[in-house]
């Protein structure tokens, strides 16, 4: 039993490894794009020989890569939190309808011509909170956090949200239709450093808060009675975590639309590699989830011959088979 007493050592070790991975993928992310794919041109630009490419790198690719990192981190962390709270490795804000609710709020925000920040962010947050409240009302009865009923009512609400989204899309007749549809599929293309700044101000405190709750999340996995008997205020902790993670999800949805499967794949992969301790999983989800999204976005930008694909398509096309593979492996 020599793994003693060095939890901080393990946390920082794994955080550093995943952070280096993130930085590496971010460098890759800025080095390639739809207009230029060879690394030699990138090196040339960095040396100062190609001012046009350099300005593309700094003003277009860099904010976009940063945004991708934040979105990936948020979605992975959101998945991790929901899985812990529902004690179900298949839970995810996406499946529970929280993202769908945020998307409905976001579309309404766009339709009444609000600005992305703070207007659409706020309507998206209201949408996600409304779905969260509905999920609770539907699943309540005896216990507010009964795990299966919560997941089931979430799945039903998600289907309902999808229908409402389709309805809203179908009544839009003007030029906004295309941008709404592209946004819904998961779109990282419209951004600049100012917006990434807003996002980081909103998201980083959420990440830190969730990190401080990482040990209580371990205890919550033991079930609410046991967590309570080990000194955790189960209801207060669960509800704050749900609200904080719904908030971060709505921020990302309002900027980038619906990007699925990241919240399932990353926590699963990391749990298989690193075990179930959330004190380690929370920081590694932030960094590795960010790295994964930066890579997916890089693929979205460079795979198509002309133009680019939506990153939501890439995450789903990689995520779904990868997730099935992980599930298959973890059963044996």
């Amino acid at each position, binding site marked *: 039993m020599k793994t003693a007493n060095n939890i901080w050592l393990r946390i920082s070790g794994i955080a550093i490894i995943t952070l280096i991975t993130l930085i590496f993928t971010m460098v890759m992310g800025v080095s390639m794009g739809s207009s230029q794919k060879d690394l030699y041109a990138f090196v040339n630009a960095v040396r100062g020989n190609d001012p046009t490419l350099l300005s593309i790198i700094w003003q277009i690719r860099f904010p976009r890569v940063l945004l991708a990192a934040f979105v990936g981190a948020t979605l992975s962390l959101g998945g991790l939190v929901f899985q812990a709270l529902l004690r179900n490795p298949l839970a995810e804000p996406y499946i529970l309808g929280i993202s769908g609710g945020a998307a409905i709020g976001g579309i309404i925000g766009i339709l009444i011509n609000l600005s992305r920040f703070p207007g659409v962010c706020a309507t998206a947050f209201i949408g996600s909170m409304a779905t969260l409240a509905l999920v609770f009302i539907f699943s309540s009865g005896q216990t507010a956090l009964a795990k299966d009923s919560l997941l089931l009512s979430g799945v039903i609400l998600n289907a309902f949200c999808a229908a409402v989204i389709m309805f809203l899309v179908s009544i839009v007749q003007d030029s906004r239709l295309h941008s709404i549809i592209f946004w819904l599929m998961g779109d990282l293309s419209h951004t600049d450093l100012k917006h990434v700044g807003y996002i980081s101000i909103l998201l980083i405190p959420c990440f830190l808060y969730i990190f401080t709750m990482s040990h209580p999340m371990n205890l919550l996995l033991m079930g609410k009675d046991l967590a309570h*008997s*080990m000194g955790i205020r189960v209801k207060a902790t669960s509800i704050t975590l749900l609200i904080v993670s719904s908030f971060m999800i709505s921020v990302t949805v309002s900027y980038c639309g619906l990007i699925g499967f990241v919240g399932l794949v990353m926590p699963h992969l990391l749990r298989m590699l690193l075990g179930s301790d959330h004190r380690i999983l929370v920081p590694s989800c932030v960094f590795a989830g960010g790295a994964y999204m930066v890579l997916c976005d890089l693929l979205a930008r460079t795979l198509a011959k002309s133009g680019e694909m939506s990153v939501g398509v890439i995450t789903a096309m990689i995520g779904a088979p990868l997730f099935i593979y992980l599930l298959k492996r973890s059963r044996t």
Partner: protein
Amino acid sequence: MIPVVCFENVCHQYDKNDILKNISFNVPQGSFFIIIGPNGSGKTTLLKIIAGLEKPTSGTISILNQIVNKYSIKELAKVLAYVPQTSPVDFPFSVLDIVRMGRSPHLGLFGDENNDDIKIAEQAMIFTHTDHLANRKINQLSGGECQRVSIARAICQEPQILLLDEPTAALDLGHQTRVMDLMEKLKTERGMTIIMISHDVNLAALYGDNVLVLKDGEIIAQGTPNDVMTYETLEAAYQCVVLVDESPLGKHPRITLVPEKYRT
């Protein structure tokens, strides 16, 4: 004897049904206190009320001479540990991780342990014969192993009072006696008060210092096994025919079920 748990006129309702009706009793310090009674008699609710997991509709409960509402959740977790009937965990925690979680009430927000905490966890595992399982995953263990890990986690909490909800229900004969012997050892060696729900009246008769019989939310008998485990009480509680004589080990009552074919 000083009471460690004291119930005064405790009532509990759920959906307008009376689960517990005017319950009053004391649990003496350092005793092995066993609650028996038929299904649905309110045993688990009673245990959950002691653990602070359910709030009674009325009445007062004191633990270690202090009203239970005055404890913070964390303070209560330092004096009282709870082992539920089953505690399935879908996540692949190692046995060592689970046992160490028991230290949480004594630790800070991040649960980082010092060497003493780790020593306590190791001792709890040796005590419950789970030390060889330390690196196994909790979701790969047998029922008996899980139950012992759950008990090790509770011991790691270093409580003065240990609450167990039918810890022997899913275990074979050998494991049943081992778990009960373990409880006896915790009582005599560490002075812990053990409060346990049991369906096995013979185990209750062999190990219990005090037995409380619950039926339809009311106490129908309370006292030493010899006082309580009589033909009349058991028949009234369980609505079945039993024979009660003395165990060949002496001093303990022995209860034998009488099947219908032997009744005259």
